[in-house]
C-alpha cells in the first residue's frame, strides 16, 4: 500500500470546499476523487481503490452518519468527518459508528493533513502488524506489553496499561470516553467518566515528561482522549516513509 500515491475520496456538497481540498491534497501528493452526494460516494468507494474517505456531515441527500455506517459495513478504510463545533454528542456518535477521527469546520489544510496522515499510518501499521507505537519520548511495545519513556521501562498497573494499550491501538486518532470505559472497565461502566479522569491523571504522571502540560495523552474535551502522534513521525507520502516506521522482522 505504501508504494502508490494515496487516494482520498472527498464527499462534500459545497463545490468550493471540494476545490480547496483537491488542491490541498494534490499539492501534498495525494490523488483525489470527489463526490457531492452520499450515494455517489458510496458508489465510488465500491468501484475504486480508496485509501481514505473524508465526509462532510451536512449533505443534501442523506445523513453523513448513514454514509459512515454504510461504508463501514464492508470496508475498514479510514474515515474522517468534517463537523461543526458545539456538537460533541454528534462527534461521539460518528466515532462510535466507525469514523476514525473528525476535524471541526472551519479548519486549515495542515490540520486536516495531520489527521489524514495519522489515520493512514494507523491503517498501514494495522496491515503490517507492526507492534510498537512511538509518541515523542514514549514507546509502547504492544507485543511485549512494555512501555518505555526515554529508554526507561515504566511500571504500569494492569488498568493503566490497558488504557494506554487501547489508545495506542488508535494512536493519533481520538478514542471516545465510552469506548475506553468499555474496553478497560467493561460495558456496565460506560458512563463513569470520572474513572477515566482519575486514571488519565495517574497515567499522565507516569508517561508525560511534564504532567502539568500534557503533550502525549491529549484531552479532546467532551469527546475522548487521543495519543498524540507527531505528524512528522507519521507516515508521510510520498514514500519512502521516515525511519521511525521500523519494519518488523520476518
Amino acid at each position, binding site marked *: 500500500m505504501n508504494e502508490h500515491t494515496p487516494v482520498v475520496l472527498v464527499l462534500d456538497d459545497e463545490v468550493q470546499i471540494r476545490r480547496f481540498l483537491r488542491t490541498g491534497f494534490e499539492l501534498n501528493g495525494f490523488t483525489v476523487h470527489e463526490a457531492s452526494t452520499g450515494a455517489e460516494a458510496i458508489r465510488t468507494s465500491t468501484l475504486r481503490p480508496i485509501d481514505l474517505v473524508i465526509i462532510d456531515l451536512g449533505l443534501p441527500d442523506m445523513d453523513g452518519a448513514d454514509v459512515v455506517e454504510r461504508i463501514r459495513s464492508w470496508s475498514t478504510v479510514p474515515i474522517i468527518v468534517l463537523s461543526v463545533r458545539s456538537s460533541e454528542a454528534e462527534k461521539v456518535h460518528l466515532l462510535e459508528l466507525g469514523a476514525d477521527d473528525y476535524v471541526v469546520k472551519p479548519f486549515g*489544510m*495542515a490540520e486536516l493533513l495531520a489527521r489524514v496522515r495519522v489515520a493512514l499510518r494507523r491503517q498501514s501499521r494495522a496491515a503490517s502488524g507492526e507492534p510498537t507505537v512511538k509518541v515523542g519520548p514514549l514507546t509502547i511495545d504492544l507485543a511485549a506489553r512494555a512501555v518505555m519513556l526515554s529508554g526507561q521501562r515504566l511500571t504500569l498497573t494492569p488498568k493503566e496499561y490497558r488504557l494506554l494499550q487501547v489508545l495506542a491501538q488508535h494512536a493519533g486518532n481520538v478514542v471516545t470516553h465510552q469506548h475506553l470505559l468499555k474496553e478497560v472497565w467493561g460495558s456496565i461502566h460506560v458512563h463513569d467518566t470520572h474513572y477515566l479522569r482519575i486514571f488519565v491523571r495517574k497515567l499522565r504522571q507516569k508517561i508525560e515528561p511534564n504532567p502539568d502540560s500534557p503533550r502525549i495523552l491529549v484531552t479532546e*474535551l467532551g469527546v475522548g482522549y487521543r495519543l498524540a502522534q507527531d505528524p512528522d513521525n507519521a507516515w508521510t507520502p510520498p514514500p519512502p516513509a521516515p525511519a521511525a516506521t521500523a519494519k518488523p522482522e520476518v
Partner: protein
Amino acid sequence: MQTAILRESARDDVRGVVFAVLLVAATTLIVFGIIQWVGLTRGSVVYLVPVVIAATRWGQVSALVAAALGVLCSAFFFYPPAYSFEITDPEEVLNIILYVFCAIVVGQLASRLKTQYELSRQREIDLTDLYAFSRRLAVAFDVSEIHAAIQDHLAAMMQRRVLLFSSGRDASERRTAGATPDPVLRKVAEFAAGCDEAANEATVMGDDGELWLVRSVSAKNPDYGVIAINLGLASKEGYATLRGRLDTVLADATATLDRLGVAHAITEARMRAQTERLRDALIGSVSHELRTPLASILGAATVLAAAPSLQNDPRLRDLAQGVREEADRLNNDIQNLLDATRISSEGVKPYIEWADPADILHAALDRCSRRLAQHRLAVDLPHDLPLIRADQILLQQALVQILDNAVKYSPIGSEIAVKVRAEDEHMTFSVSDQGAGLTDGEQAHMWDRFVRGERHVGTTSGSGLGLWIASAFVAANGGSIAAESRGPARGTTIFLNVPVTHSAPPQLESDEDE
C-alpha cells in the same frame, strides 16, 4: 364593591346580636347597682347607650335587638312592680314608647354613619390599590408582568387566592403559588384555548374538596386571560354571594384594564417578544449561511499559504496568512453571534459530568494558542486539584472568551497569567493581563449584551458579546464571574468561580498489580 360591603354577612349579624345582648346585660348590671346604691328608679333612658354602641359597631340588626332587650329589661327590673314585665303607671308606658322611638332613630342614624364610614374607608383602600395597580402596569415590561399585576389586583379585591392564566395557544400558568389541582388546570386550558365559546365560566371541584371558579376575565377581550379563584370549602349559598361580588370586581377590573390601555400594552409586549425572536432567528440563519463560504475561504487560504509557488515570495505568503487570520476572526464573531442567539432563544442546557479542571484549562489554552502566541503566558496550575461537576465545554468556551479579551486588550509581548485555585466551596480560574484595565463605568456595564468599552470601539474590533456569553456559560454551571482592575491601563483580572462538590466521585475498584 358597594354591594359587597352593604351585604352584611349572616355571621357578622350573629356576632353583633351576641354583643348587643352582652351590652344590655352589662348595662342592666350597672344600672341595677346604681339604683341599689343611689336609689334612682327610672333607668330606661340609660338603655340608649347599648343601642348607640351596637348600631355604630355592628349595624342595625344588633341595634334593634339591643333596643328590644332594653325595653324588656327596664320593664322587668326598674318599673314597678319590679321583677315583672307588667307596667302599671301610664306615664311609664309613654316613657317606654318614647324610648323605643329614640332607640330606633338613633340606631338607624348610627348604623348609617357606620356604613358611610366603612364605605369611604374601603374607597380609600380601593384607590390605593388601584393606584398601585396602575403604577405596576406602567412599569410592566412584558405580558407576564402585566398578568402578574392583574392577578395580584384581583386577589386583593376578592380576598381569595386567584390565579391568572394568559390566554392564547401558549396558555401557561403565570405564577404558581402552591399547587393547583389538575381539573382546574384542564378547565383553564379549555377556556384559554377558546374551545368552549358558549360558556363563560365554570366551577370545578379540586381533589381536596375545594371549589374553584374558572372564568375568563372579560368576555370581550380574551387578552386579559382566564382566572381561577379558590372559593375554599364554600357552600352553595356562600357561592352565590361570592359570585355577585366577583361579577362586580371583574366588571370593575375590566373597566380599569380598558381605561389603562392594558390590551394595548399586552399587544405591544407581545410584539416586542416577537421582534426579539425574529431577530434571533435572523442572526441564526445569517450566521449559518456565512459559515459555509467562510470554511472555503479559510481552507483555501491555508492551501495558498503552504503552496510551493508562494513559499518563495514572503509578501504573498503573508497575504495568504492574513486572509486566514481575518477569516478566523470573522469565524469567531459568527460563533459568538450563534452562541448569543442560542443563549437567548433556547437558554443554556449544561451537560454536567465529572471533569478535570486541568483538562478544561488546557483545552482552552490549546484553542487560543494561535492568538496567545505573541504574549508571554504564565500558567499556575496545582496538580492536586479536585475533579469538579461541570459542563467542561461551556467552561472551556467561557475561558476562551476571557483569554481572547486578555489578548485583545493588552500589548503584544506583555504577560497573561492564568491561575487555578481550589477553595472550600469553589474553584477559581483567574486570567490576569497587563492591558487596558477598566474604568468604573466599564466595570458597571462590561457583562451586558452588545456593550463595548467606549475607549476601544475605534481601535479594537469585537461584537460586545464575549463577556456576556462567558457569564451566561459560567452561570449555567452554577458559577459566577467577576472582574477586578486597578484602573485604566493597569491591567484586568477576571475571576471565574465554579462550585466544588463535596461529595467525592464514587470510589474506583482497586487496581493494584495482578
